[in-house]
């Protein structure tokens, strides 16, 4: 069975993602990659991108999210280098903090 490199070398993959996240600061607070399968069973990485609240303004949301996803795809090359199809989700820092609080409560 074929095991994508992202699964076999998770630490290195996470380090590559962290490097991309740092290059996108201060707009991007963090990028949390989760490895798994998409709805068709294809090996995938689900990026949860936490945006700074100042970067999460609705009037420039499309521009920011496009820029972030393009940078991550170019720098990390999830499919070409690591064998996983990239998916992106974006949350604001305040939204993520609220969700973390409700999980802890």
């Amino acid at each position, binding site marked *: 069975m074929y095991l994508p490199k992202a699964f076999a070398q998770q630490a290195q993959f996470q380090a590559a993602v962290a490097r991309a996240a740092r290059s996108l600061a201060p707009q991007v607070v963090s990028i949390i990659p989760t490895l798994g399968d998409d*709805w068709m069973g294809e090996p995938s990485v689900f990026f949860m991108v936490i945006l700074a609240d100042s970067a999460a303004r609705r009037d420039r949301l499309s521009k920011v999210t496009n820029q972030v996803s393009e940078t991550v795809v170019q720098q990390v090359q999830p499919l070409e280098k690591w064998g996983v199809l990239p998916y992106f989700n974006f949350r*604001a820092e305040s*939204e993520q903090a609220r969700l973390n609080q409700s999980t802890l409560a």
Partner: protein
Amino acid sequence: MSFPDDLLELAQHLADLYPDRPHQASFRRAVSTAYYALFHLLISDATANWARPELRAMLARCFDHGPMKTASKATIAEVTRVLKANPPEGREKTAAMHLRTVANAFIQAQQQRNDADYNIAKEWTPLEVASHLALVSDAFRAWKTIRDEPDAQAYLVLLLGPREGRPNQPKPSGAGVKRKKKLNSPGAPPRA
């Protein structure tokens, strides 16, 4: 407005339904509806090429989510390869970038639709929903710019599915020769 445009507007309406106290149900329906807006936009343009209008709805049923994802992934790979070669600025390069926007939005929206409809463990936030709707809206704008370009039209055909496994595909010449020999064999039992 067309049906896909109506769906996209409905998705936005659902997302904004409870601004003070967002509901997970309306968020989920918004995300799912946005995917179907793009799904139907592409299918309606593909079937519009069919000369007989009365058969377009039947043709539309031939499109399926899985092959459409596969075609979108292949299109992104091809466009990326072309763009890596640094083509000159111009109409073709712009069209390629728009096509990548559409194909990528299709793949992303499809997965989000699956999560919205089936993954009840996931909690959606207003920004997550807004970013997905923005992605699909961008894809609508991109598609309307390139819908008549040759590569966009080829993408519509690819969305029907891969050539492999289709009935009536020409077989490799060797296979045909073997079969003919067997049928002509005088000692062969009659076929049922």
